[in-house]
């Protein structure tokens, strides 16, 4: 009993000490950056990419960093507020779902800049990053439509979120550009973390004849790779991060958001004091989004297909690319 009492006293002492010292430190040199992710950073995808971005900010800009995994809107707001109160300079909420909480908390902490990756809400100290995921998704679709033998291509998403739907629509347009008769199967797992459910969905689509599957389901999507590994002649296309190393023998490529690059773009602005609250649209030209074929499976994509992809990409860079009407 005495022992626990002592701990409590020591704690009070420590807390008081920190409370006295901390504000001076913050005001002088500290560049403090925080990240809230909606899922585990072990997903090798959306959340893992963001964490890699946070680490790059730490290493390149010497920032003091903090990360928290949060699931519910109530927690988004509580943690945004805590970071603001603790003098953080820059706080990332990783997904559109953070924007309501950011809009509520940002005005309370004008010295902290709140960024949501996704969404559209902006303010003086609040910005939203948008990723033009459609163009690289189109390229991935073009590859899928060229490679499929069965003429059936699958899309598996975590839940039916706006950016996922938009990506699948552009992917579908790409498939149909290469192969107008191809059939597209779209299904959603219902969550972003159940890998076995992801595997089930993939096996179901494979059962329906799909031989290329485009997955965008984060940790649940890891099950899609597992399904492809245990069946024959099925290829997977990854999303969000470079997923070519998860299952190199079955992966055609990845539609990648270079989250570290995107995070660094914003963090540099904030550190140099040039940041302005706005909608930050990141596209093929900024090289934040791109289609990355799997280097360890070069024979999977025929040379003429790669050439077509490169020429379409050139039109995208020249801003002459016109997306076919999306269904």
């Amino acid at each position, binding site marked *: 009993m005495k022992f626990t009492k002592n701990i409590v006293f020591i704690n009070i002492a420590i807390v008081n000490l*920190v409370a006295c010292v901390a504000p001076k430190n913050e005001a002088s040199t500290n560049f403090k950056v925080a990240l809230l992710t909606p899922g585990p950073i072990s997903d090798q995808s959306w959340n893992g990419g963001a964490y890699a971005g946070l680490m790059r900010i730490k290493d390149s800009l010497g920032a003091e960093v903090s990360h*928290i*995994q949060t699931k*519910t809107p*109530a927690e988004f707001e*509580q943690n945004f507020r805590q970071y603001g109160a603790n003098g953080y300079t820059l706080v990332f909420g990783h997904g559109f779902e953070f924007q309501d909480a950011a809009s509520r908390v940002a005005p309370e902490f004008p010295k902290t800049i709140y960024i949501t990756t996704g969404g559209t809400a902006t303010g003086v100290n609040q910005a939203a990053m948008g990723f033009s995921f459609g163009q690289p998704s189109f390229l991935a679709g073009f590859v899928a439509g060229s490679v499929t033998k069965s003429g059936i291509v699958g899309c598996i998403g975590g839940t039916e979120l*706006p950016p996922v739907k938009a990506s699948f629509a552009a992917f579908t347009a790409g498939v149909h550009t290469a192969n107008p008769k191809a059939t597209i199967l779209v299904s959603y797992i219902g969550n972003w973390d159940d890998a076995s459910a992801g595997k089930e969905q993939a096996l179901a689509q494979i059962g329906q004849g799909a031989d290329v599957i485009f997955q965008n389901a984060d940790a649940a999507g890891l099950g899609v790779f597992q399904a492809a590994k245990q069946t024959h002649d099925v290829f997977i296309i990854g999303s969000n991060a470079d997923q070519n190393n998860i299952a190199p023998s079955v992966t055609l490529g990845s539609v990648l958001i270079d989250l570290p690059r995107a995070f660094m773009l914003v963090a540099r602005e904030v550190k140099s004091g040039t940041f302005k609250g706005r909608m930050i649209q990141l596209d093929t030209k900024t090289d934040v989004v791109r289609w990355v074929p799997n280097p360890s499976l070069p024979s999977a994509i025929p040379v003429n297909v790669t050439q077509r992809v490169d020429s379409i990409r050139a039109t995208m860079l020249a801003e002459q690319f016109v997306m076919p009407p999306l269904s």
Partner: protein
Amino acid sequence: MTTPRWLTRVGVPAAVTVVVITTLLLVVLLGGFDLSRALRALWSGSIGSSYAFFSETLVRASPLILLGLSVALAFRAGIFNIGAEGQLLAGATAAVAVGLGFSQLPSALLVPAELLAAGIGGAFFAFIAAVLKRRFGVLEVISTLMLNFVARYAVSYLVRGPLQEPSHAYPQSGALPPAARLPTIISGQQTHLGLLIALIFAGALWWYLRSTAVGFRVRVIGAGPIAAASSGRIDVPQVIFGVFLVSGAIAGLAGGIQATGVTYALYEDISPGLGYSAIAVALLARLHPLAVVIAALFFGALEAGAAAMQRDASVPAVFVAVVEALVILGVLAIGRVRTQIAVGRLTAEPAE
């Protein structure tokens, strides 16, 4: 050689608390994290400052109090209602639907209407399981658990369909207007009126179970439904049915205060499994309504402290989830040991 009742009442939860904190620290230490930083974060994030206490711990504890009461009441009557999660979602949905649908009403009418709707929503969800139990003898453990999934996917549908926000881009409802929100009760803090409502319910339920005839019947049924039925004075199915609905209504109300007091809109992930944590709260409180308040505060503080540990000491949230699961096991184990001691005592001193 009998231990005084107050000692076991206080002693067991205190022991559990010590065990929980020790386990948590052990896990943190074994995980290779900075113990002093983690401790500091746990302390300062939960009760170490007025902000942490009023805006973090109390805000998290408010729905847990109501949910804990819901579970405790049902368990007291021998109903294993583990559907608090689904009833909470039904309540939150009903509250948001009313808040958005009648947004032109003045706050003094609108907020009570929302909370009433939340209660009815929760009761309705419990009603399904209660009818299944009464008519067909379906085990409520299974039906309420399954209904949690029904509720979850129903919310997923609603926030993409009838209740979706006006721009139709995001899977969430429109935001409740200020008049439809629960007022905060301490200036500069996030503590909302829901806390007072929860405390009033705790007091009322305690009095009700202890001092009314119906409360007595509930306790008798919980102690032995066959004996209760044999007495010929208690309509067991009727009382169970009623308790089930009230239990659901209280859980629904928890969803109502969460939606109108904290999130101000309906989201798919509005509850981080509060309805399941509530079972641990109720068990830790040994199903006593007033103790539920303390247990809920404990869990609220634990979760607030856990968030701070994640932010400041990089301790992953799963560690706390593991510890919470250990709490339940610990409470169950201690309860079991106590029963054995009691049985042992009875056989040792048969004639007294």
